[in-house]
């Protein structure tokens, strides 16, 4: 029900519609006058950039789907036809292929911003959880999309990842046969991956809407990590942040265009321009770069865990790796429960800050380890970094929550700005 004093927006037809469907009031409230902290830095651009990337991926993807054939005999050829014969097809495919990488880099920055400034802390825990759910859906969507060109990396990536589920005790083998729709990755697998790859972006869109509803409940966090207390702490979203987001978008699109037009295959793997061959495994299977840290965690587990003094195996190395890899994402859901420190922003957490940067470096090293063959030093480095990844969440954060002193925070968002002495 409308509040008694609410006035419909606009005049004439707009007012008539708005009285019956308050879409204009909603847009004015959420996109125009929406009060936003005045001190957001450029790291706050990456949320809207993620939204733009989702739209670019959906639009370019729908156009690609009109030219693509989801059949093992024709998939590779149809992608090559898009590249050579379809008008502007090369551009649309390069936008879509590089767009996946851009989407992940933007989302990763968005997440690390949340980690640094404590955006997952009360009252934004559900907002954070929905974001992790979006990441999970994105990973599934990107994985299935990479299978569609039906190159060697498509086929063998699909084989390795679907085989992860065979590690599940008792039902694993049957589950994998069910996922495949056969006894190996083959045509039934390709057709269902195409159907799901088309579906999942719209699921992501649905969760993004929930993510935005949860965001607008309490508004954006900010670099100081303190709440909006007075009117002068905030500024209207439009025009201040619409223009800032658009400026950031322009810079981002320059980078994106640089990849599309000058290095369109830099982030891909040359083996995927070889048609899929179930009889020959490429010498070195690597996933796309955005999965490399998780791939390194998967491979880090090399021990079988037995019940002590017996031969009864509890968790073999394969299942252990799979649990670790899924656990690496799942642990993010529990982040608000693991980090209970009352101060949000790392700016006022001198103990947490170095651990944040250490964690970021560990993630980058894991990415590098994931790109290398599992030999020599890479194995042990991967194991140390995997251990630290979990120690950071399961030990460091709970301990810091207890021992890190609570520093006194600025009185308000506007106070540090307005109290600065006037410059001569």
């Amino acid at each position, binding site marked *: 029900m409308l509040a008694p004093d609410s006035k419909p927006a606009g005049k004439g037809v707009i007012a008539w519609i708005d009285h019956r469907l308050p879409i204009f009031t909603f847009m004015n409230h959420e996109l125009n006058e929406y009060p936003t902290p005045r001190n957001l830095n450029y790291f706050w651009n990456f949320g809207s950039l993620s939204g733009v990337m989702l739209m670019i991926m959906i639009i370019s993807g729908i156009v690609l789907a009109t030219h693509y054939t989801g059949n093992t005999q024709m998939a590779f050829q149809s992608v090559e036809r898009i590249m050579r014969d379809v008008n502007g097809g090369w551009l649309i495919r390069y936008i879509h292929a590089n767009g996946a990488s851009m989407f992940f880099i933007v989302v990763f920055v968005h997440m690390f911003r949340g980690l640094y400034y404590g955006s997952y802390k009360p009252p934004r825990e559900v907002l954070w959880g929905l974001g992790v759910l979006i990441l999970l859906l994105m990973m599934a969507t990107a994985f299935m999309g990479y299978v569609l060109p039906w190159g060697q990396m498509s086929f063998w990536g699909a084989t390795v990842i679907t085989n992860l589920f065979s590690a599940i005790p008792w039902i694993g083998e049957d589950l994998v046969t*069910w996922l495949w729709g056969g*006894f*190996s990755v083959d045509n039934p697998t390709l057709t269902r991956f195409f159907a799901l790859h088309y579906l999942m972006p719209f699921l992501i869109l649905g969760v993004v809407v929930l993510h935005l509803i949860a965001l607008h409940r309490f508004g954006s966090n900010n670099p100081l990590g303190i709440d909006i207390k007075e009117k002068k702490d905030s500024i209207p979203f439009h025009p201040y942040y619409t223009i800032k987001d658009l400026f950031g978008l322009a810079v981002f699109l320059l980078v994106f265009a640089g990849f599309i037009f000058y290095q369109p295959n830099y982030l891909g793997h040359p083996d995927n321009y070889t048609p899929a061959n179930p009889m020959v495994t490429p010498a070195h299977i690597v996933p796309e770069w955005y999965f490399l840290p998780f791939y390194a965690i998967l491979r880090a587990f090399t021990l079988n865990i037995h019940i002590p003094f017996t031969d009864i195996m509890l968790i073999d190395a394969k299942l252990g*790796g799979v649990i670790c890899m899924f656990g690496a994402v799942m642990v993010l859901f529990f982040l608000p429960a693991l980090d209970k420190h009352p101060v949000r922003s790392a700016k006022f957490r001198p103990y947490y800050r170095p651990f944040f940067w250490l964690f970021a470096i560990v993630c980058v090293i894991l990415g590098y380890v994931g790109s290398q063959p599992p030999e020599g030093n890479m194995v042990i480095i991967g194991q140390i970094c995997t251990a630290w990844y979990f120690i950071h969440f399961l030990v460091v954060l709970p301990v810091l929550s207890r021992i890190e002193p609570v520093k006194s925070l600025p009185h308000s968002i506007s106070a540090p700005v307005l109290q600065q002495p006037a410059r001569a």
Partner: protein
Amino acid sequence: MASKPSSSDTVVDAGKRDFISMTASTLTIAGAACAAWPLLDSLRPAADVRAMASTEVDISNIPVGEGLTVMWRGKPVFIKHRTAQEIAEAEAANLAELPDPQADKDRVKKPEWLVLVGICTHLGCVPTGQKSTEARGDYKGWFCPCHGSQYDTSGRIRKGPAPTNMPVPPYTFINDKTIRIG
């Protein structure tokens, strides 16, 4: 005629209402599961996929020491014509040292012919070693290039992350020159 309401008309029997809610929700969930079943079942291997069950292979052209890879159910099957030395090494292996102990004689029908599903039991890559020019690992059998699993001349896992030996598919010798897999 307005009669005085009896206690059974006015007093809410909470237990009875809970029972009705719970049975109604349970039946709704059961109904949804029944409706979902045929949809999920349709994703299992279809009849044409299941029909591709067996393959006949002429093995007379495989020289001693070399292997042939054939497709069976979309998977590579390794048929290896083992040398006397390879057979001896496979039979001499100390079972106590194996991660997945199995005697060589339990894995072959004729010692000179080894038939395996040529898929690494770790994450499904195809190991190298079918040709004498390919990497075969420390145990002279097969080597998986993905994560470094090493198999011996009986296709048993010896080193690396793979949990089990490469499986032996069901097969029969139709005659000395032909086997049927599946």
